[in-house]
């Protein structure tokens, strides 16, 4: 794994086994952190003809009014010039887009929610396994601080209330689970925001669509999030 800034090796406890992961991790946590706004996203208000911050409050209002996320974050085919083969996943956390490379210089673009400030990471990983309606097991540190998580310490069964949503793609480095996932969500209004502890969340329709198209072993390129922090590297 390419190591750049900080050369941080995150020790993570997953499934009871301590593993070292050579990802570029700014802060290691698990995927389901509380909402916190980095608030870098803006949407265009056609009524006022102004760009407005798209933060948690705005996002809730927008979703409640429109029953969907802003157009930019809806699934769509876009031009995408790359030498990466079809089936490769590219994650651009700054822009809140996930691209699935298609033949013919195109990609399917999905809107995503990504890690909040301090929880960004980058690297080249792969889809190690997938699951439908996955079980969610909160990490010990979340169990310790959150009574709602504590009751699911042994694992929350998959279902419509499970925070991992309808599908999960488990990201591996080599044979090791990175602890990061691409998964669905029960909070679809958070697409386009910096809200997680490092996982990539999608609305359930999109993760079901992506899951149906992705092969085990698919390459996943996660671009560095928070570019402004890294000028001059």
């Amino acid at each position: 794994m390419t190591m750049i800034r900080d050369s941080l090796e995150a020790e993570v406890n997953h499934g009871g086994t301590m593993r070292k992961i050579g990802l570029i991790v700014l802060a290691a946590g698990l995927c389901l952190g509380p909402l916190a706004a980095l608030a870098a996203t803006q949407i265009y208000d056609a009524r006022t003809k102004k760009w407005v911050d798209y933060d948690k409050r705005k996002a809730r209002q927008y979703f409640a009014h429109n029953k969907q996320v802003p157009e930019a974050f809806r699934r769509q085919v876009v031009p995408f010039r790359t030498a990466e083969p079809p089936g490769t996943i590219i994650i651009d956390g700054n822009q809140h887009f996930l691209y699935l490379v298609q033949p013919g210089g195109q990609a399917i673009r999905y809107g995503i929610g990504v890690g909040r400030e301090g929880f960004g990471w980058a690297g080249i990983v792969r889809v190690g396994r997938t699951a439908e309606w996955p079980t969610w097991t909160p990490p010990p540190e979340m169990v310790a601080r959150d009574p709602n998580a504590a009751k699911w310490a042994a694992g929350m069964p998959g279902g419509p209330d499970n925070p991992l949503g309808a599908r999960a793609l488990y990201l591996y480095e080599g044979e090791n689970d990175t602890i990061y996932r691409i998964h669905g969500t029960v909070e679809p209004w958070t697409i386009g925001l910096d809200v997680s502890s490092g996982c990539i969340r999608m609305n359930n329709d999109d993760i079901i669509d992506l899951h149906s198209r992705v092969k085990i072993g698919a390459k996943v390129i996660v671009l560095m999030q928070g570019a402004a922090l890294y000028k001059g590297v």
Partner: protein
Amino acid sequence: MARTSLQTAPADLQLICANAVVAQASGARVLPMSSRQLDATTYAVDVDAGGRKFNCVVDSSGSIKSVQPA
């Protein structure tokens, strides 16, 4: 429409820059690390290749303007 306050390069342009560095990477993994818009049609992308840093400039059509060790 939506945008981000970070004026980063589009993902495909970042990868075009990374690909331009591969030949100098001696087999190391190459990953874009940061990017910024220089003007209306040009982006700078900082690329890491196994610890070696490169600066790449690419335009919005995907043409590489320069690649230099940092």
